Each structure stands twice: as C-alpha cells, then as structure tokens.
C-alpha cells in the first residue's frame, strides 16, 4: 500500500483561512492542487492546515482524481476532504473569533504584569557572599527545566512567564552588578542572565506555538531543535537539510492503521487521545527506528496538538535519533524537553538516567527502556 501523505497548507491570516475555505474548496470539500508526487486514486491524504495562531489542524481526505503533468514530476490531484466536518469549521471559526483584535482605547496603557522594581539590591552586599550566592544559583539553574529557571509553574501563562523573567533579569542582569567592578561577579551574572533569557525565549515560543498566546514580548521564530511547538515538527527537524528542503511543502507520513479520529484536538490533560499512535511509536522506538517513530508522532500531534504524552514521546524519539548519531548533548536536551512537557514520561526519565551514566546507548538498552 502506498504511504499516506500529508499536504501542508499554511495560512498566515484569518482572511486566508476564510478564502481557503470559501474559494479554494469546491463544495466545501473538494481541493485540487499540484503535488510533487504521484498519487494513486483512492489513496488517503491528510491536509495539515496551519492556522495563523500556528495551530495545525489535520484533515483527512481521499484522492478522487489524479493526472500527471506533462514534462513535470508533479501531479494534479483532487482530494475529497471528508475530515472537513462542520465541527472542524466551527472550531476554526471559534479560534478566529478568539484572536479578533479588541479595539483598545487609544491611549490606555496595555495590561502589564504587576510591577517589579529593579531588585539587584536584594542581592548580598558582601562580595564573597554574593559570589557564593550566584555560583549556587548558576549550579541550580543549569540543571533546572526551563519553567523552573523562571520559577513558574509548568503550565504558566504569558503574563506569569513574563513576570518571572522580568523579575530575574532585573535582579541578575550583568549591567546591574557591573558597578561592583568585580569581573568574576559580572561574569556569573552574565551566565545567569543567559540561562534566564534562554528559558524565557523557549517558554514564550512554546506558548505561541501551542496557540496559548499570540505573542509574548516580541515575535520570536524558534530555530529547529528549540524543542517547542510545531515549527520543528512541520519542518522535519532532525532530518538532514537537503531532505528538509526537498520536503518543504510535503511531509511524508507512513501509514497509520489506527483510524485517526476527526481532527478535533482533545483538550485537558487527562485522556488526551492518541494512545494508538503512542503504542505504535513505542514499538518503532523499541525496534530501533526512531526516525519513523518521530514522523508518526509528528502526524499524531497534528491531530492531538495538546497531548503531552505524544509531545514528550516525540522528543524522546528525536533523542534516540540523536543518540544514534552520537549527539549526546542534543539527546540530553531533547530528553529534558520531554520531561519538561510531561513529567510522567517514564521513557525519558529512564533514558536520561542511562545517558547520564553511560553516555552511549545500544540496541539492548533501548529495548529495555521501551519495554
């Protein structure tokens, strides 16, 4: 059986979404487009519709017509998107309504997190005490998950993240301790500030990617490997660059036997759905095929964007793949990310422990981890 394909359509404005729905689709369900692969009639296709809030909705479809284009590797296909149910349309509408700009009073100050004064005075005055304090902080933060660095809850919202970051920067910024004219202390302050800024950038990018905020601070486009959101999924992070470029428009997803439910992502943290994907990915990981597992999980995340187990497993898969290439640092950070997304990810915890003890892994070790 030919593998099922995913088409990626990106809409950067809600108008584009509207246009896509009303103009591009015939009878609300038929989509014709040129694709860079030969599509067999009746094969299934998933449309990954990326919305302006960076949420990707997966819509199932079946190829109804397919005609190769003369002298081109491309094919014209017509897909019936049976997954584009009224429910899905309603969900998109709701999201669009949610971000409609609320006209603010022209001169009203925007909402801000409650005030934090410059707090560098709170640091110990005595230089040796300060040095000790900063060193301890640095040691702690180096091991902490990003939200712990900022001292916020795992599911903190935009305001809490900003406040956490601001509070720390106003205390630790190297400029504020520079006047003490002790290079060692300025250096420590810079190291701490780097950790704090990195944590902030990751958390705010994650919030935006998960569709929980429009923008936090400024708009930041995270590089691949930043372990957040869909950007890295859609661009196939971890795959080699040449392949990534070739795939820009189309991500191939191997067949998933379990019937994917309609594209409404489950909310909440309890039964988040997608267990079938999880099981499948685990098997692949156990069999030493992290790359396929990653693709399966990426596909699953399109359907269940809020599933923490799936997301964390995605990072585990990318860690396993990194381990295969000997990139231990990368693997470690991916595993940390897995745990940051979902503490209950026992594979991540076990693998991390293993990596920390032995550095390398082998097939046998992996099999034990995913048992």
């Amino acid at each position, binding site marked *: 059986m030919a593998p099922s394909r995913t088409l990626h359509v990106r809409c950067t404005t809600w108008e584009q979404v509207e246009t896509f729905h009303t103009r591009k689709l015939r009878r609300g369900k038929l989509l014709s487009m040129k694709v860079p692969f030969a599509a067999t009639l009746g094969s299934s296709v998933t449309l990954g519709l990326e919305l302006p809030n960076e949420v990707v909705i997966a819509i199932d479809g079946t190829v109804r017509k397919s005609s190769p284009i003369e002298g081109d590797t491309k094919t014209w296909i017509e897909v019936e998107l049976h997954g584009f149910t009224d429910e899905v349309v309603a969900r998109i509408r709701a999201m669009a309504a949610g971000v409609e700009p609320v006209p603010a009073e022209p001169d009203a100050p925007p909402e801000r997190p409650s005030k934090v004064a410059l707090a560098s005075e709170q640091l110990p005055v005595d230089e040796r005490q300060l040095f000790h304090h900063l060193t301890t902080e640095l040691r702690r933060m180096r091991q902490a998950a990003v939200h712990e660095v900022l001292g916020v809850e795992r599911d903190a919202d935009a305001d809490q993240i900003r406040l956490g970051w601001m509070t720390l920067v106003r205390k630790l910024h190297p400029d504020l301790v520079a*006047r003490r004219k002790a290079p060692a202390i300025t250096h420590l302050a810079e190291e701490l500030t*780097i950790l704090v800024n990195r944590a902030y950038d990751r958390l705010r990018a994650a919030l935006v990617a998960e569709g929980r905020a429009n923008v936090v*601070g400024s708009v*930041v486009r995270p590089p691949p490997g930043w372990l957040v959101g869909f950007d890295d999924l859609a661009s196939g992070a971890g795959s080699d660059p040449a392949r990534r470029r070739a795939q820009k428009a189309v991500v191939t997803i191997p067949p998933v036997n379990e019937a994917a439910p309609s594209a409404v992502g489950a909310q909440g943290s309890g039964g988040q759905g997608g267990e079938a994907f999880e099981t499948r990915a685990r098997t692949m990981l156990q069999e030493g095929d992290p790359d396929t597992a990653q693709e399966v999980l990426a596909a699953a995340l399109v359907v269940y964007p809020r599933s923490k187990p799936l997301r964390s497993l995605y990072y585990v898969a990318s860690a396993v793949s990194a381990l295969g290439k*000997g990139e*231990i640092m990368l693997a470690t950070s991916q595993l940390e990310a897995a745990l940051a997304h979902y503490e209950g990810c026992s594979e991540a915890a076990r693998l991390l422990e293993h990596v920390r003890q032995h550095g390398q892994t082998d097939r046998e070790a992996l099999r034990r981890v995913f048992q």
Partner: protein
Amino acid sequence: MSDRTPAVGIDLGTSNSVVAVIDKDGSPRILTTSEGSMTLPSLVWYSPDGPVVGEAARDGLDHSPELTIFGAKRLLGRRFDHPEIRRLSRLLPYELTEAPNGDTWIALASGKQVSPEEVCGRVLFELRRMAEAHFGGPVTRAVITIPAWYDAAQRQATKDAAQIAGISVMRLLSEPTAAALGHGAHRGVDRNYLVCDLGGGTFDVAAVDVEGGTFEVLATTGDQFLGGDDVDRLVVEHLLRDVKNTIGFDITSDTLAIERLRLAAQKAKHELSTDASTTLVVSDLLQLPSGKSVGYSKPIQRSELEQWAARFIQRIEAPINEALARAGRRKEAIQDTLLVGGMTRMPAVVREIQRVLGKEPKMVDNPEEVVAVGAALEVARLEGRIEGILLIDVAARGLLVSTGQSDCELVIAQSAVVPTREHRVFATRQEDQPRVEFDVWEGESPESEKNRHLGRFAVVDLPPAPAGDVLVLVELTLDTDGTVRLSASELVSGERMQLEQVFHSGLARADVARLARQLAEAT
C-alpha cells in the same frame, strides 16, 4: 588607572557626530568643537597637507570631492558586492573599491586605499580630542551608538574604528534606544514607544517599552540606505536636468559641479522645512575655458521638493510596519512616537509617519543631540552613577551556522533576548580528522546567499580518533552589545579546543593595532 579616566557618549552619525557627557550634577552636556559647534560633521578630507576632519574638511567638498569622504558610516562592515554599495559607488564623488576579503574600501586619487574603519576612526579621534579638551586629561572609553539593525560585522567594524581612535568601547548602544533614554523616557510614566530616527544616511525604527526604569526593546528594524543624503541626491537629479535646460550645460560628469549642487540642494532642503519656498543659489557652478564662472539659481517650492522626494518618503512605511509586526503590536498600542534625526524636521516626513501610525508623532526637543545624550546616560548608568535603569535588547537578526555545502541552520533566533547562547555539536567524518571547519552567518535564511557571512572558523588540533568519535561542541554567545563570541570544547572531556579564524570580514587585529599606533603617533 584607565578605569578612572572619564568616559563619554558618542553618536557617530552618517553626516554629523556628537559627543556628550553627564555633568556631576547629573545634567547632560554636549561638548563643542573648537569652532564652538555642538555637532562635528562626519567628514574627512585627505588634503595634500594631510587628513582634515570635521568643519574644516568642508573646504575639501568644494575643491576635491574625490578626496573628501562623507558618509563613511554607510560603508562600515559592508561587502563590496552588496547591491546598495554598487549603487552608491556610482553616485559618490569618491571611488569605492573592493578589499581582498570582499569588504568595501575607499580608493583615494593618490592611489592610496583607506578602510571605512580608518575614516570613522579619524572622526572618532577628533571627538576624543574634543572630550580631552573638555576634561583636560586623557579620555579613552566611550559608549558609541550604532543603528539598531547593524549586523555583527558592522558592530565589529565600529569597535575597530574606535580602537583605531584609541577608544575602548564600553558598550555599543542602538541609536533608537539611546534616543528613548536621552529623551528621558525612564523619568516619565510607563509607555510603549516607537522611535523613528531618520538621519543623514540611515533610518532606524525601534519598538521600546519603558516600564519602571526598564527599557525593553521589542523589535528593531530600519532601512540601512535611507536618509537625508538620498533626498539630496533626488533633488540633484532634477537639478541636473534643469541646468541642462536652462543654461545649456550638461554637468552630469562634472563631480565638482555636482558636489556644489548637492550642497546647495541640502541647504534649500533645510530652508524648505520652515519656509514654503526658497531660492537655491550656486554662485560658481562651473568655469568656462575662458575663466568666466557660470552661476545657477532656481526658486524651489516646498511642494516641488516633496514631489521630488516622493520615492524617498515611500520607503518610510515598510520598516515601521515591520517593527510593529515583530513587536507583535498593533499601531493603536503605540502610545508615543518619538521623532529623532535631522530629517524628521522635514514636514513631509512627519506627515508620512503620522499617516502610517494614525497618530501625531512627537518631535523630541533636540533631535540631533538626543542620541548622544542617551549614550552619555548609558555611560553614567554603566558606571553606576545613575541607578534604576535597565536596558534589555533583542537580537536584530538570527545567527546561523553551516558546514561544507550544507544549508545554514538557525542557531540563535531573531528577537532572542540578549545576552544569549546556543550551541551546535559537530562530529568528525573521517578517521583522524585534524580539524572541523564551519561558517557563521547572520540572517534568517537556510540559503547562504541570503545571509551575511560573518566568518569561517576551524576547530583545530583534534585528537586522532575513528570517524565520528570526536564531538566538538561549539558555543555561540550573543552578548549585550550584539557581538558574537565563539568557543569550542570537546564534548566528552569538556576540554577547551583551539578555535581559528580562517576567513573573516573586517580588518585583521594586527591592522587595527597598526592604524591605532599610526594615528596616535601622527598627532
């Protein structure tokens, strides 16, 4: 102790430079040139008697424009093959040339070539002398302002120019942030600012939030080749045609005449900011073979100037919109727009900014000096003489790396808060591979042609081992100045590794040191 010597704030401008200090009582003071002027024209005339800087170099513009370098700041840290440099090189009265490493240099008629760093170094040296005259003692440290969109090569070039002038840079501060600081934004109520700085050569836009003494720069954009000089050139283009029609001379290849026309056009432009009409006069535009000189005069309406400058005005909107987009801001959320830079005195510029933002912008009291005042405040802040202010900036561009022919891979994102650090791990591909080379780029694109090449680096002296066994961890740090630092270590052992620069843009360290020595000895 060098730490005890006073430090100054410097606005190194495309057309004018300013140096300021904060007095003991906390009030800002603009230092003056020996002629008593608060601004020093950023001009260097390589006269037969040696280089002349500032006001005195204006004579050079009149007599030997091919030896009189204005606007060198536009050339700092720029590759010669940059399309805007190509365009400029056709328009400038002096000649541009390509340095062996691809940088833009200036070819003087004497056959000598000078780097823009050296030219700017001379301007900075003059500013340093003004400061030393004020303090009556050596001045060796400064905060220097730069356009917000400067890339790492331009930042490094600025630092090199300073070093040539014997100045160590305490901090490079972005001009719009300096303007917000100089405007005293920290003293007022908390606000969301948009700073628009339109000067002689560059347009800078920054979205800055001020809250409880903290300046948070959300986004900085700009047009690197948009400034008053462009208006002057547009006017000159029209005048050339007019000269031909009215007095019958084609002076398109007469650099001296064009330069005189440009100066007159600039003067007329200034007058038309306050008056509705003026008359442009060039008493001796050119000399006939008989020795008789031909003059030219033309009445100009403000509306005419605005028509000629339309192409210039049109380019104001895009950087503003981009700054808003990057800051994730709607224009309604901007509470104050600060206008900075000499060109914002032109009414059409103010109108355009008002049109784009739908709100009346605020002209700061001293648009030409406010940036230097900000720089001086930054000095005082870094020295701990004023408290309660913190500046937080973001990366103006992304930082990428690539190896061999591979795509560029984004390592540090645009708008990441600085200082920040990210790493990449490189593995050896062959047995006993002695070194790993990689390139560092600035930009956003996976395609290297679209990015700015910062340099090629090599981690050398790798221990002999089978392929893939040596893992090199390269860390890229973007510091508070926006300058890039690199370090390399062996991943498993954590041991530091030797990092070599194979290729780099800008001057070599040894050349900078040599030029600094030469300048110090010559005076």
